[in-house]
């Protein structure tokens, strides 16, 4: 039987993670930044499941499920915050949210 390499999955996770990091740094729109954060969380999930398969431990799957739940909570609160920023400032550009700039 043909076997998959560990590095296939880990490198895919690394590429997705770095794409998400680029998105968080370079994007202007708050909703797009939230999407990039989702990319990062998915990359972490791939890594968790790969290490879980590697060590034959179920903890990888369990914590991937916890991350999915936390991601759902994060998106809910994050989008509520984006909505109230939009309502107060009529814009979701991160460059416009600078009242705390020193």
């Amino acid at each position, binding site marked *: 039987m043909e076997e998959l390499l560990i590095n296939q999955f880990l490198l895919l996770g690394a590429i997705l993670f770095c794409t998400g990091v680029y998105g968080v740094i370079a994007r202007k729109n708050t909703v797009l930044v939230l999407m990039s954060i989702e990319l990062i969380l*998915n990359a972490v999930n791939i890594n968790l499941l790969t290490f879980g*398969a590697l060590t034959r431990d179920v903890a990888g799957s369990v914590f991937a499920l916890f991350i999915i739940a*936390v991601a759902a909570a994060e998106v809910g609160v994050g989008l509520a915050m984006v909505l109230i920023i939009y309502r107060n400032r009529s814009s979701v550009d991160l*460059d416009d949210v600078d009242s705390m700039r020193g």
Partner: protein
Amino acid sequence: MVSVFFYLIAAVMVGAAIVVVTSRNVVRAALALIVVFAGVAAQFILLAAEFVAITQVLVYIGAIMVLMLFGIMLTRARIGRDVDATNDHWWSGVVTALLLLGVMAYALVDYYGGDKLPADRQINSIADSVGPSNTSTVSDSIFSQYLIPFEVVSVLLLAALVGAIVIARKDR
């Protein structure tokens, strides 16, 4: 054969991920994100984690993407082209991401090299059903060993739900 599917799905995922972070159209970025989520679910199946894959489809594609699209519509992003979706110092993002990728790829290739996944943790093991399935193992350990973290996550979800309603409420 499994490897071919892996690389096919991985190529689609990486392409869609790049569309997510570079597209000037917010809705197109959201639709590309759905492709990435579906690809991640497929990779979970290749890793013989069928329960997590189904949860991924239900929660990410079903719930989170609908929330994202609601967010896009409610903030009235222009549905057509949105020219200034990327800020002026995007090149620092490219540098950071490439440096990070270089370091991680070097460490991974150096440490794991050509190591293979255990044969009983690959997609073929789902159909074999020699031992208990992955789903039953996961549920057993969630409700015994990881019961307290599970309850904490439940309370976190409740708190996030209440918090989101309080934050987004209009009449204050």
